[in-house]
């Protein structure tokens, strides 16, 4: 049953999934709590012009394309935080506009250059083919995420649950938002390199949403989201080994989805609430 541990690629995938979930769980939970669940998806599109520019300059170099995606994603994230601070509109409206512009710009750049290489297949990795460099990227991202999270956790919680009170306490709450968005983009880029777009966003958001159906306090939600994320990752990977012809990426996201459905049906804050009320 566990004979897949003999394979180096399976051991690497297991380590990557657990470590990645460790960083993605807190980031995903706060995205959900701050009503920015769609920001993950938006960021994955926002990264494209950076990738395109990096590709035009340096060709198919994974390092430069990762950096390019990081810079573009961060610019969109930070710009929407700053605009939310200085203008009337909330963060989500600015982000939606900016990421669409970035996406259109990226596709435009790629088309002008007339390339048909499937850039995504080069930049966005596969969980079964993890390079040592990708593992280092994941480890570094998770370390930074956990350290920064430990530093900003209290103000971040305060700002998430009561933004008006938080603003009355400190003038620098926008800084907390900005740092948080940096973490979001970092984790997504690491996730893209390891898993591909769909799975990276899935592993960040779905376990956090599922966890929210069970608990109300933030700290248990973070723990539960990690368990859901890492658990679905491992189970999805194992299914792709036990059954034949099950591609591992979609398999992992589908297990996440199953956890979500179970949480929705049986969680304390799920559809149960309606049943109890009726």
């Amino acid at each position, binding site marked *: 049953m566990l004979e*897949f541990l003999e*394979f*180096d*690629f*399976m051991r690497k*995938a297991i380590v990557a999934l657990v470590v990645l979930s460790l960083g993605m769980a807190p980031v995903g939970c706060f995205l959900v709590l701050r009503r920015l669940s769609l920001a993950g998806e938006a960021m994955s599109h926002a990264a494209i012009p950076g990738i395109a520019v990096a590709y035009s300059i340096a060709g198919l170099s994974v390092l430069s394309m990762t950096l390019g995606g990081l810079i573009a994603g961060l610019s969109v994230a930070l710009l929407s935080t700053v605009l939310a601070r200085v203008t009337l509109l909330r963060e989500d409206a600015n982000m939606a506009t900016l990421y669409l512009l970035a996406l259109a710009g990226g596709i435009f750049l790629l*088309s002008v250059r*007339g*390339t*048909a*290489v*499937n850039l995504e*297949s*080069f930049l966005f*990795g*596969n969980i*079964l*083919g*993890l*390079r040592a460099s990708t593992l280092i990227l994941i480890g570094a991202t998770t370390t930074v995420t956990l350290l920064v999270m430990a530093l900003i956790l209290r103000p971040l919680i305060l700002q998430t649950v009561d933004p008006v009170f938080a603003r009355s306490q400190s003038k620098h709450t926008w800084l907390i938002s900005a740092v948080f968005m940096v973490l979001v983009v970092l984790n997504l880029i690491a996730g893209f390199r390891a898993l591909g777009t769909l799975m990276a966003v899935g592993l960040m958001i779905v376990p956090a949403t599922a966890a929210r159906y069970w608990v109300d306090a933030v700290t248990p939600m973070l723990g539960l989201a990690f368990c859901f994320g890492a658990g679905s990752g491992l189970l999805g*990977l194992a299914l*792709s*080994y*036990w*059954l*034949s*012809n*099950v*591609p*591992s*990426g*979609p*398999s992992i996201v589908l297990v996440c989805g199953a956890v979500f459905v179970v949480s929705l049906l049986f969680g304390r804050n799920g559809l149960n609430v309606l049943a109890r009320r009726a």
Partner: protein
Amino acid sequence: MRPLLLPLLALLLTTGSLSAADPIKATASFSILADIVERVGGDRVVVSSIVGPDSDAHTYSPTVGDARSVAKADIVFINGLGFEGWIGDLIAASGNDAPVITVTRDIEPLLIDGEADPHAWNDLTNGVAYAAAIKEGLSALDPDNAAVYAANQHAFAKEIDELLARVQPRFAALPQNQRSVVTAHDAFGYFEAQFGLRFLAPVGMNTDAEPSARGLAQLIRQIKAEDIGGLFVENITNPDLVAQIAEETGLDIGGRLYSDALSAQGGPATSYLAMMHHNIATLLSTLSRP
């Protein structure tokens, strides 16, 4: 009125048919095919390729510029066998009723799990068949130059025969345990049949399929259990999976094969023959290592 009509009609016909000065505008679906069209057409034909060098035709999505290129074409060449699934819509959208030549029409396709393998050009004799289909298409459009196309096709076929005669004995001389190789996707079925090799790959014929953990594990087991002569990456697919296989099995990566597209200018595979030559040389140099 009547005396005017005939010359007018004649004028229409002459502008409609091709005058000797204008070259034929041909559009080919991908770089390898475009090169063979160029060989057969010579300077009578200007060829444009929809999917460029180092690019993947399996997952290509056409642009408006491609539709324009197809709309302006006097003749369109496609590979067929489901290789460029997007081409039908593109030709229909262009509104052009220029002849569309499917160059694999006379080829008996290899079947893999009941599905035709589109990578037919990887058999050198099919390369000759491609050129023959192109010659017929061009001659029907431009009968005045049929002799030129026939001569070009003949020269091309002769080069292929020479290449085959040179390399066939070298492949035949390979020992049984040096005949299996691993590539990124299943593109070399025809090559395998022609030279008596065996190609294994973690992903099937189409590049956008995702590998399963079980499939990869089985491949690695197979590589460890059997004698595998070499491991190769391709120009159009992500090398990560092959790199992982190399790490896990201790095999070296023998080089880069050009599977579904030519290399860009300055690369080792800028024409069909250069590509076949490069692939053959890369394989032979790894496989005939003692």
